[in-house]
């Protein structure tokens, strides 16, 4: 409940609606409560005394009341929607802003799928819940209390039935709910099991097909499916006990009312209409209690959503921008220095991903980083645009510690083409212009030309306007990588990082990209992460990384002489002294 209540602060800007809804609901409840009394009037004063005037008058009065109650209900519904959707929208906006402010370390921990769920279905659940609470939380207790009072007014003796029936039903409902809850938790686990198998098969559908694992996977799925079905059946069976239990309680109450009431009518002069009204109030109270219990269950499921949303809202970005922020007066020259850098993704883990890394990249140099998978190549370059902060030592750009440069400023000068080439489902043009949305077409096509992408883009049906993504053109891995490179080139950064971003591009095209980069009109320090030796041959400096440490650095020829690991890599990728394509 606490998490949900905390989120209710988002109602504040919509307080008018949030107040109006319950007030109107109050009106509706009062009018609803009048109904059985009016029926009683018809029976006792109309029918019993054969007074048609009273019957018609009371019936018309009832119609008026009903119309009013209907209007109040409509109003309440409208205001509840306004308030709940207001809250939902604001909450989503707050969460989105929070995600934008998070750093890579947070994002790694929160994982994309879970993040999206929080902004979509979790917020939705909360929104629906607020809407229901605004109606139900007022209506139900009031209706219940009102029925009780009205019934007691009619006959205190009969009212005793309430005192027996309502607690008995409450206890019965609580017992059922208590048993149902763990069952539904198990259902959730079963559902997760089924989803996991599905997700894995979707992601790895090629592997499953290629290795003819279909039958095995089907059996695995059947197992998860059976577990889910068993748990689901148990849960549904348990929770469907509520309806008969409630009906039975209500009916026992009615029989009791008739039994006692018959005596009351005979001995104490109770009117028949009063007895009928009493039975109506009893029914209302029991049904309301039942609805109330459903609402409670729903609130507690929304509680889980509220907790997840709150967790995200309250998470702090791991990178905090420092107090004195430095801006470069002019374009930095691009000198990058790593001074005894050690790094680890999580502080709790004693195994360092990078150990004592020290090197200098002079302005305009091309630095290549070579090493086996998992040696820390990508991690190293990601420290330059400060995706993560170093644990020890420092990374400087033009002599300024990157931790002292505001993220936005730093990233304007450091362009990176990530390992995975990610495209947005918009036009090719907008994908390339991501870092500078109003770049001129000339700038755009130059970047594309240098990335060797211009040619294939022009061959597409809509050229630069062609849409990419699910509903757009199908691009090959190499083409996507070239778009990602063009995107990084467009902003003309002082430091360009190509993080293994030519792996799917053939060697000839890769050479053309490198030539184009050499001919650049502006000064740029380049970092090239590669697994292919052909990608690094012409670099000014090659860092050989092994297990998070630099084991050698120098030019191609220096390393061929001095570094055995480098020679081994070179030999494995050449045949008879000729470079092959199989570097990957």
């Amino acid at each position, binding site marked *: 409940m606490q998490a949900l209540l905390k989120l209710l602060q988002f109602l504040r800007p919509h307080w008018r609606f949030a107040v109006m809804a319950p007030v109107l609901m109050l009106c509706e409840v009062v009018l609803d409560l009048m*109904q059985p009394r*009016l*029926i009683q009037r018809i029976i006792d004063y*109309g*029918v019993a005394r054969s*007074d*048609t005037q009273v*019957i018609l008058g009371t*019936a018309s009065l*009832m*119609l008026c009341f*009903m*119309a009013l109650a*209907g209007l109040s209900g*409509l109003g309440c*519904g409208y205001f*509840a929607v306004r308030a709940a*959707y207001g809250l*939902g*929208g604001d909450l989503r*906006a707050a969460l*989105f802003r929070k995600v*934008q402010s998070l*750093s*890579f370390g947070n994002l790694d921990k929160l994982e*994309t799928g879970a993040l*999206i769920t929080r902004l979509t*279905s979790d917020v939705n659940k909360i929104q629906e819940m607020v*809407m229901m609470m605004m109606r139900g939380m007022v209506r139900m207790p009031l209706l219940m209390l009102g029925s009780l009072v009205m019934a007691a007014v009619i006959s205190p003796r009969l009212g005793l039935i309430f005192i027996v029936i309502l607690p008995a039903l409450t206890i019965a409902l609580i017992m059922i709910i208590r048993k149902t809850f763990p069952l539904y938790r198990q259902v959730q686990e079963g559902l997760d099991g089924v989803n996991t198998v599905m997700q894995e*098969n*979707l992601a790895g*559908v090629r592997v*499953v097909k290629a290795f003819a694992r279909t039958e095995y996977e*089907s059996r695995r*799925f059947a197992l998860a499916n*059976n577990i889910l079905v068993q748990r689901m059946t148990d849960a*549904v069976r348990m929770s*469907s006990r509520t309806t*008969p239990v409630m009906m*039975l309680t209500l*009916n*026992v109450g*009615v*029989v009791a009312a*008739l*039994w006692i009431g018959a005596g009351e*009518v*005979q001995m104490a002069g109770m009117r028949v209409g009063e*007895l*009928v009204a009493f039975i109506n109030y009893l029914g209302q109270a029991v049904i309301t209690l039942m609805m109330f219990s459903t609402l409670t269950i729903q609130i507690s499921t929304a509680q889980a959503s509220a907790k997840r949303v709150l967790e995200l809202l309250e998470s702090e970005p791991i990178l905090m921008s420092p107090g004195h922020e430095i801006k470069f007066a002019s374009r930095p020259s691009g000198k990058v220095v790593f001074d005894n850098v050690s790094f680890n993704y999580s502080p709790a883990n004693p195994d360092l991903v990078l150990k004592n890394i020290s090197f200098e990249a002079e302005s305009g140099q091309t630095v290549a980083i070579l090493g086996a998978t998992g040696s820390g190549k990508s991690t190293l370059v990601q420290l330059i645009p400060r*995706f993560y902060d170093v644990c020890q030592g420092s990374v400087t750009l033009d002599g300024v510690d990157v931790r002292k440069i505001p993220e*936005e400023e730093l*990233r304007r000068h450091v362009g990176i083409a*990530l390992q995975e080439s*990610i495209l*947005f489902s918009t036009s090719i043009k907008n994908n390339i212009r*991501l*870092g500078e949305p109003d770049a001129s077409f000339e700038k755009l096509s130059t970047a594309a030309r240098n990335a060797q992408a211009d040619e294939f883009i022009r061959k597409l049906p809509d050229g630069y306007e062609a849409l990419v993504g*699910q509903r757009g053109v199908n691009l090959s891995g190499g083409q996507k990588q070239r778009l990602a490179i063009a*995107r990084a080139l467009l902003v003309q950064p002082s430091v360009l990082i190509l993080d293994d971003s030519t792996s799917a591009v053939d060697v000839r095209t890769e050479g053309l990209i490198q030539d184009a980069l050499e001919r650049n009109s502006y000064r740029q320090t380049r970092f090239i992460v590669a697994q292919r030796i052909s990608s690094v041959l012409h670099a000014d400096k090659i860092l050989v990384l092994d297990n998070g440490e630099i084991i050698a650095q120098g030019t191609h020829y220096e390393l061929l002489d001095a570094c055995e690991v480098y020679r081994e890599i070179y030999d494995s990728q050449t045949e008879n002294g000729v470079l092959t394509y199989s570097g990957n």
Partner: protein
Amino acid sequence: MATDFQEKQQSAPAPPLMGRIGNAQTYSEVQRPQKTLETLRRVWFYLRRQKISLILTAIMVVGTVCLDLIGPFLLGRVIDGHIITRNLSGLSQILMLMLLVYLSSGALYLLQSYVMAGAAQRTMRDLRADLFSRLLHMPLNFFDRRSHGELMSRLTSDVENINQVLSNCVAQIVSGSLSTVGVAIAMFYINPRLAAVSVVTISLLTILCNRWLAAKTRVRFRAQQAALGRLYGFMEETIGVQKVVKAYGQEKAFTTQFDVVNEDFRHAGIRAQSYSGLTGPMMNTIHNTAYAIVAGVGGYMAVFGMTTVGDTLLSKKGRNRLQPATCSLNAYRP
């Protein structure tokens, strides 16, 4: 059976089973009216494998409906025959009979939902298994054209929607329609004129309101769904590649775009929801209006000896039974 189904499916360009059935989890009302019957028709293919359970359920439904009719009937007798006439002899017997009827009705209901839950879940199992094996046999380009998220949402939330329909609606629709017919017959048997008043008021009001509301709601819901699609699409794309957004310092630009889509959705949502929110209060009003009319007419008739208080009460009870049944049936009408 399964193979027959698969062949049918493969000939179609877009497999109908995989077609979105509506995102009931988040927007329960959205596509329900149009799609529920259609969903049921498709699910029937799987459901009919559970023959024994279905037959058992049907028998028990008939039983509960009958018992549910006897209860109010006895109530009417008690009021007219014992309480109004102040005649306590035989009252305890009739009350015991009532208790017995209610008890067996409850027990039967319990048993019925027990059997039905098993059948529904076994049906879901078959459906899921078929879906999965079909998925594994889809050509690879099927996966290229769709994102994992889209497929997962079909496989999970859409299947869950079918589950909801199956678990909640099937027995309800059957018992709802049966008891409506039963109640109507009983009411006409007891007092044709009062019954006519009840039936006419309720059907007329319900149909009128539904016509009006359904037309208004449908357009707005479509708009809401479209806005929701844009919002979710935007969020999934942006948050999915948050690192690229950050690497290029585009946080502010994307936030601005987000605000536009978010506002759009909020407006569309309020428009749609305030109309669908009308359904509850409106049904309530219909219910209550009919209540008032039956009370008025019944009272009037009672004065002229055309009915009794107990019968009027029974009509009211019967009308109460009619109400939910017509409501749910209406919700499923295309």
